[in-house]
């Protein structure tokens, strides 16, 4: 079992090197909910260390798309390769992808029955088999990085929304992932808490983490993103570096979306 895992990881290293540092490869991917065609022929290559912001109107399939990347949703056609491992029905492959991909949700989804520290340690201990002491030390390090080490022994229910979201980021980071997915991490927050979460994300971006963020924080997209992707009706309509995307959008749908969102 361990041998298999090691060889798999070895395989992953070889593959990603071959693919010239492409860490996520999505090719001709389609997904349906019943008969509803929610994702249409998506293609995307993400290089290691790249920071991508995905935006688009509500219901355009942004969440569904990034949830396919760690197989919280299953795609029916096409190919998704993450860190050299293709996502198929094979549970071991799914698990090995999930170990390397952290995710932050709109509604935090912290485990309410565990303290902040336990939230951060549970996956390293049970998935990575890190000794408890070491896992706790790592967790404290990341809690410091998101600036809430003093809350380590509180329960999530005792924290503000912004604090909870920063714990959620720390929890994902404790697994030392290669990729971080963010699904509208600030949309459920009160306005005064958005900044503390965005600051954490900016800091994370500067550390070289590969990031895919679904967000409508255009300021964040302008300063941090390498590429902005606009989705509408289940398609990738436009994909461009931020200055091009905001100053010179090519597609009329993008122009209209930007007009609406920047007027607020």
């Amino acid at each position, binding site marked *: 079992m361990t041998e298999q895992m090691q060889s798999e990881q070895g395989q992953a290293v070889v593959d990603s090197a071959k693919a010239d540092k492409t860490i996520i490869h999505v090719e001709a991917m389609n997904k349906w909910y019943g008969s509803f065609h929610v994702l249409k022929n998506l293609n995307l290559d993400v290089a290691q260390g790249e920071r991508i912001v995905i935006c688009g109107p509500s219901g355009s399939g942004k969440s569904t798309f990034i949830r396919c990347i*760690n197989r*919280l949703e299953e795609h029916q056609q096409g190919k998704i390769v993450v860190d050299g491992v293709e996502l198929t029905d094979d*549970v071991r492959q799914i*698990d090995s992808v*999930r*170990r390397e*991909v*952290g*995710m932050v*949700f709109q*509604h935090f*989804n*912290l*485990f*309410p*029955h565990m303290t902040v520290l336990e939230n951060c340690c*549970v*996956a390293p201990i*049970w*998935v990575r088999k890190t000794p408890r002491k070491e896992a706790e030390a790592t967790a404290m390090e990341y809690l410091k990085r998101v600036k809430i080490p003093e809350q380590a022994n509180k*329960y*999530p*229910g*005792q924290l503000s929304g912004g604090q909870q979201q920063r714990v959620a980021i720390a*929890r*994902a980071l404790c*697994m030392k992932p290669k990729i971080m997915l963010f699904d509208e991490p600030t949309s459920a927050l009160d306005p005064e808490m958005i900044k503390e979460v965005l600051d954490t994300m900016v800091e994370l971006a500067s550390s070289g983490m590969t990031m895919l963020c679904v967000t409508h924080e255009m300021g964040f997209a302008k300063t941090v993103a390498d590429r902005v992707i606009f989705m509408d009706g289940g398609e990738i309509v436009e994909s461009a570096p931020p200055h091009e995307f905001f100053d010179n959008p090519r597609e009329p749908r993008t122009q209209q979306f930007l007009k609406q969102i920047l007027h607020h």
Partner: protein
Amino acid sequence: MSESMAPPKRAFAPIRWMRENLFNTWYNVLLTVVVVYMIGTSVGPLLNWLFLDATFTGADPKDCIGDGACWLFINQRLNFFMYGFYPDAQQWRVDIMFLLLAVAFVPQFIERFPARRWLGIFGMTGLPIIGYILIPGGWFGLEEVQSHKWGGLMLTLILAYVGIIGSLPLGVILALGRRSEMPIIRGFCVIFIEVWRAVPLITVLFMASVMLPLFLPEGMNFEKLLRALIGITLWQSAYMAEVIRGGLQAIPRGQYEAASALGLGYWRKMRLIILPQALTLVIPGIVNTFIGLFMDTTLVLIIGLFDILGTVQSTITDPSWQNVATEGYVFVAFCFWVFCFGMSRYSQNLERKLDTGHKT
């Protein structure tokens, strides 16, 4: 800018409280007077019967004179009510089990008791193993005591304990199975649960004691008590599964997703994230089911097992004692009340302790 102030004090003034709550309107005055009168006229005689006029000690039935309860009856037959027909010389084995039961579970009520958790774990793992060795005997030089000799409170506790300890894990597995994505597993669990839940326990017991032997191959005729235990446990686990499924359904999808996204596999996700929350949510339902089971164990009377109710009932008809039925039933009720009230209190403690201030 206003200064922050201390909350207004709520002084406790009994007279004012009574005036505001008991004597504030003419009908409340009337109600209060009537209720106080009723309490006054019933509590006194009850106390007299229970304690003041009661006979506690003596040598034989004739010592029970006076108007009070004849507790001498309970006192004299206590051995039978505790152990049934378990031989006197071997009763120390049962006593050890009573003691271990108390050692394992009484500390659960004491917040700061050292090693409380380990005692609880012992109560659910080591205790049944020791019981399985000690009570039937027949090995390690222990004289064998066949199960038809077991009875009284001891039998009641065995039935309830095995039912509780067995049905909880079975119920968890059935509840998980019923929510499984694999059709065969789900189908099996649905059928199992719906079949057992649709049958009254009394029928299950009858089938276990009368019908099951007809289906079993020749020579595989295991004891009546064991059959009753299996029947009770399976029947109870179907109920337990539905209670637990209610808890599982109340856990938001985000919890499953967050656990999966962290790379936790199915069993770890369930054990570490989902079940602790789901079980906490349904503690009242679980304990309610336990209490129901505790009461239902009395039904074994109909297949000829003598639990505490059975032993008392068979004794109160003894002609040498006169009119001791009330005493007998009060005693049985009291025994049941002690255990069921204990479980209820324990569940309330647990709920308070597990509340982490999260409301969804």
